[in-house]
């Protein structure tokens, strides 16, 4: 289950899975957490506005805050083997 060498795994939940058409994939590591959205936008045009802008992002089951240049994890680097998750808010019930 561990991602291939030089990669991290990324999980897509709810609307993120619908938009990307997949529940997970592996992307090259290392990568700065704050450039993750730009990278995803390249792969899935339109995903930032439609999904990512309102999402929670986690790394290794921990919420990370990369919103704004004074965000606590602005300098965080996603390393090989890490597990990142894109979690859009689900609002229905």
């Amino acid at each position, binding site marked *: 289950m561990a991602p291939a060498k030089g990669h991290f795994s990324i999980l897509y*939940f*709810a*609307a993120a899975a619908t938009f990307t058409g997949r*529940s997970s994939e592996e992307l090259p590591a290392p990568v700065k957490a704050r450039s993750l959205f730009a990278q995803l936008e*390249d*792969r*899935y*045009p339109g995903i930032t*506005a*439609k*999904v990512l*802008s*309102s999402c*929670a992002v*986690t790394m290794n*089951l*921990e*919420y990370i*805050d990369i*919103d704004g240049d004074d965000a*606590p994890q602005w300098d965080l680097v996603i390393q090989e083997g890490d597990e990142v*998750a894109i*979690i*859009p*808010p*689900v*609002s*229905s*019930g």
Partner: protein
Amino acid sequence: MAPISIIESLRQQITSCEAQLEDLRRQLAEAEHYQQQRREQDGLRQTTSAFLDPLTHDMSYGIHDDFRSEVFAALSQVEDDSPSRKWPLDRTEYKRYGRQLIMPEIGLQGQLRLKHASVLVIGVGGLGCPAAAYLAGAGVGTLGLADGDVVEESNLHRQILHSTSRIGMTKVDSARVALNSLNPNVKFIAHSRLSPESAISTIQKYDLVLDCTDTPASRYLISDACVLLGKPLVSASALRTDGQLMVLNNPPQPPGDTRGGPCYRCVFPKPPPAESVVSCGDGGILGPVVGVMGVLQALEAIKVLARQTKSGFNNSTPPVAEPPTLLIFSAYANPIFRSIRLRTRKPKCAACSAQASVTHAALNSGSLDYVQFCGSISPINALASNERISVENYAKIRLDVNPFTGMEPSKDSHILVDVREKVQFDLCSLEGSVNIPFSVVTTTPAIGSNGAGNGDQDEEGRDWVSELKRHPEKPIFVVCRLGNDSQLSVKKMKQLGLDHGGQRWIGDIRGGLNAWRENVESDFPDY
């Protein structure tokens, strides 16, 4: 058409009312039977008859007769002078809650805390029904129920407090009937749909809140009000096969106190774009998915209430709380649950930080526009009137002889494109229609654009375009479920050049299959 549907509707209403009446009669009978039983039991105790089964003669109830009468005398005495009662719970409560009372997590003190607690369940649907059922079952003293909807048939596969006989009844009333027969010891309070104006005054009276609603706007409103009032909030949601659960504002310290738990805005500061928000009606929901989330809400509420020693935020030491987590449920993933560790309150949170802009005054004055904050989608009106056709006129093209040309109706004279997703198309469709799902239409790149992804995928995604181009003379009618996606699809098809520079007519069928069923073919399935 119209008179028939009125008659049909009246028939249905009569059937529904008769079923409700039947249900009430049954409940009355049950209640009378129960009362009768109680009387008989009490009577039995007083007479303590020794002429029943010889084997039980001496030891019925496991106690010797002599003792037994004493015990019963003592018990009835306890009942009589209830103010100076010996036991903190009623006799029936020990019995009813016995299985949870003997657990160290609850115990007598926990049960008493539940009994003295009041919980507001906002939304009595897929989440609220199971949550309220378990809270009532566990003996929460007061349960508030807030909802503005009535029970519909399409609710019943997941909203377990409602029943077929109560279709048309308000959800709050229906839930009260069910909950009251589950546990008559609980006090139920009915509320209408929560609004920004009523949020503070409604939530104020409760110790803890369950957010079981279904829109982003209500989630922010409830979270804000809970932060301002110092109420812990158990928030859950579900759609399709996914669910989320958080215990927020726990401990419920005042805004600016970093020891307090994060609020909904800390986790999701920005609402999702309105056009991307999908309801259970449009996106679908599996009953057990939303059920499991509602059951977990009840569990978290019981954990908070049974443990809590003080409430409100006027005490100097905050009550101990578990570290905040976001529980993700994904029914078809492995593992099925993931627990995300959340951060503490966000330093710049608009609601719970020292810099909060959400205040009592702002909320009460109505200056916080939650609908605007979350955006709203007005009904789509993307096409000109000559790009649209009513269902009645489309029916003529399909079914009637053309009054001018005398031509037989023909399904071959045009192309009918149904843009619902395949799974819906497979449920029911108009004869001769071709399925090109909206998700395929919208993601098909325009010619010459360098879309991302590999070339094969682009080719595959464009198959339908070349297919439609093979019959350049036939007009294209586009239909969907409600008439929104069909309009956007018409626009996209024109962008893709399928109208041959305006030579071919492409338009949408106004109101979609919903309108088709209402005005043309009444037995077309309504799902």
